[in-house]
């Protein structure tokens, strides 16, 4: 039933991309600023459940910003709940991802009336050494979703510009690449050096989803290991849903304020969820579950190659729709597996 999903890529292809009038694929900088200006800025207890936060902030047609990097500190728990709730006509923004975006893509293949992706602004979608992302390949090669391509740095500075409250940012690459012909950036003459410089538009998600190593109840968040683009995405988004591996006392935050990578005003909901990046890794807590990642990927690959979506459907029935909460999913994975993944992390140093 994929043809029920809205996609304009075939029509778009008859146009020259750059002839399309420019539009932000989410809130404009002014719209986003207005929302931020008008929301409550006070310190308040933002702890809630994923079910409540997702019900409140996830809306059809929204731009969803996804934190983490490929398979590290990715917000999988939030994605599971978003799939359970359902969201259509989604725009996804991210630099590089694997599990989260493939889970959304798989949900769209299983039931496009519940979840559908309209387009994605991104740099990279794949599984690193494990292989290509089969569902991304399926959706793009069949023209079902539209893609706007940037580099990893390009997407990261687009979030950075948004986080700074400016409408665009110059960057010294993209030039000479075909991205220059097809993405929404522009080559301009620098008003100061008079040389060519590429500028990319700010990227404001309606909702950013980020998993933090630790946070207090107000949303002051610590990230250990690679920060990925999480601080920027949290600041760029109209609203941010923060899952955290653990809630820590605010006294600890105030003792080491330099460690706060995401400031509380940028966070709207705080959900304590251990293993929220599983089967991805979270530095200081647990390593990847390669076997589970490969297993899920193999179901997508089978669908891509044979058109048989039954194994995918079974996966979602078992692990997403068959679970009330993410903890139910972790129960199915089992304590022994999670314990092993904790051990594999080898106690990376984090300060709590």
């Amino acid at each position: 039933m994929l043809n029920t999903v809205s996609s304009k890529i075939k029509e778009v292809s008859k146009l020259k991309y750059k002839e399309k009038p420019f539009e932000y694929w989410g809130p404009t900088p002014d719209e986003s600023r207005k929302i931020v200006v008008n929301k409550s800025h006070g310190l308040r207890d933002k702890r809630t459940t994923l079910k409540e936060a997702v019900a409140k902030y996830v809306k059809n047609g929204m731009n969803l910003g996804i934190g983490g990097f490929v398979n590290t500190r990715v917000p999988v728990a939030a994605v599971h709940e978003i799939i359970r709730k359902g969201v259509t006509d989604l725009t996804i923004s991210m630099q590089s991802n694997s599990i989260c975006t493939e889970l959304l893509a798989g949900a769209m293949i299983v039931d496009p009336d519940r979840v559908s992706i309209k387009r994605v602004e991104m740099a990279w979608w794949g599984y690193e050494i494990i292989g290509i992302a089969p569902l991304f390949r399926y959706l793009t090669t069949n023209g079902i979703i539209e893609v706007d391509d940037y580099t990893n740095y390009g997407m990261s500075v687009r979030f950075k510009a948004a986080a700074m409250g400016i409408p665009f940012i110059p960057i010294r690459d993209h030039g000479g690449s075909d991205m220059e012909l097809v993405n929404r950036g522009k080559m301009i003459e620098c008003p100061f050096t008079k040389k060519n410089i590429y500028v990319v538009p700010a990227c404001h998600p309606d909702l950013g989803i980020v998993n933090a190593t630790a946070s207090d109840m107000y949303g002051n968040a610590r990230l250990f290991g690679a920060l990925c683009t999480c601080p920027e995405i949290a600041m760029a988004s109209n609203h941010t849903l923060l899952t955290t591996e653990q809630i820590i006392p605010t006294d600890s935050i105030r003792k080491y304020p330099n460690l706060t990578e995401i400031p509380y005003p940028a966070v709207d909901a705080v959900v304590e969820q251990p293993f929220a990046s599983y089967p991805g890794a979270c530095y200081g807590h647990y390593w990847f579950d390669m076997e589970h990642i490969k297993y899920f990927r193999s179901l997508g690959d089978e669908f891509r190659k044979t058109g048989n979506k039954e194994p995918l459907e079974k996966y979602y029935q078992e692990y997403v729709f068959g679970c009330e909460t993410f903890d139910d999913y972790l129960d199915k994975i089992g304590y022994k597996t999670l314990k092993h993944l904790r051990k594999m992390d080898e106690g990376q140093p984090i300060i709590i």
Partner: protein
Amino acid sequence: MSEKDFAKAGDFTLADLMTVAAAREVNDHEVVFAGTGMPMVAIMLAQKTHAPNLKLIFEAGTFDGRPDVLPTSVGDPRCEDGASRASGLVEAFSIAQRGYVDLGFLGGAEVDEYGNVNTTVIGDYLNPDLRLTGSGGNPDINSFAKRTVFIMVHEPRRFTKNVSYITSPGWRVKKWPSGEFISRKELYGGAYRGGPSAVISTAGVFRFNEDTGRMYLDTYHPGKTPEEIKGMCQFDLDISRVSGETPLPTYDQLRIIHEVLDPEEIFLPKVKKA
């Protein structure tokens, strides 16, 4: 046999040969931007042999990580082991954009004779025959590092006259807005630097003419001839500057690859002997 002896045929794989060739591109004290897989093995091999002071940047945000165990991806938490700084993508690439990176190791699906590389799409961008993973950090690293080495599988369809899509620009690229091919130096001016310095394929090692930006064959892998390799390119490969056969791995290098860096054969399979 001594550790320093070159390995005999049958004692190493093509992947070993390429990894060692890639490691040879690294100089000591350089700052190197690493991708996942064979490039990471090559860089760490260089670090454990002739370039002990090289510094690694992993794009998720780590500077000078010194993992004992090979990370499985650039986002692997092990990348941070022993690092002098953990930050994010904005900072990692800003270090490169500012000019602190010497060498980048990258991959690609297609390359043309000017070193333009495609990792985005095969066929028409908007109606693709095959959509690939996308740009990732490829053009960032290639635009910011002093030089870049690409590691690729060699097939005629991959060494093509015109790549389907230029993800990472080579030595001659299209000028904005007229579309004519001009040199990258001219396009970017003095503020920019870098570009592909070598391509290491499954057939040989290729470099680029300093003036024309055209690719030439430098060394051919054992069992291949320059003429054969020319026949494996859709463009007219320059084979007038061949310096010889690609140097073979030593037993010491093979030991480091397979016993120290990748004992579990995650990236490089060992030679299977009966």
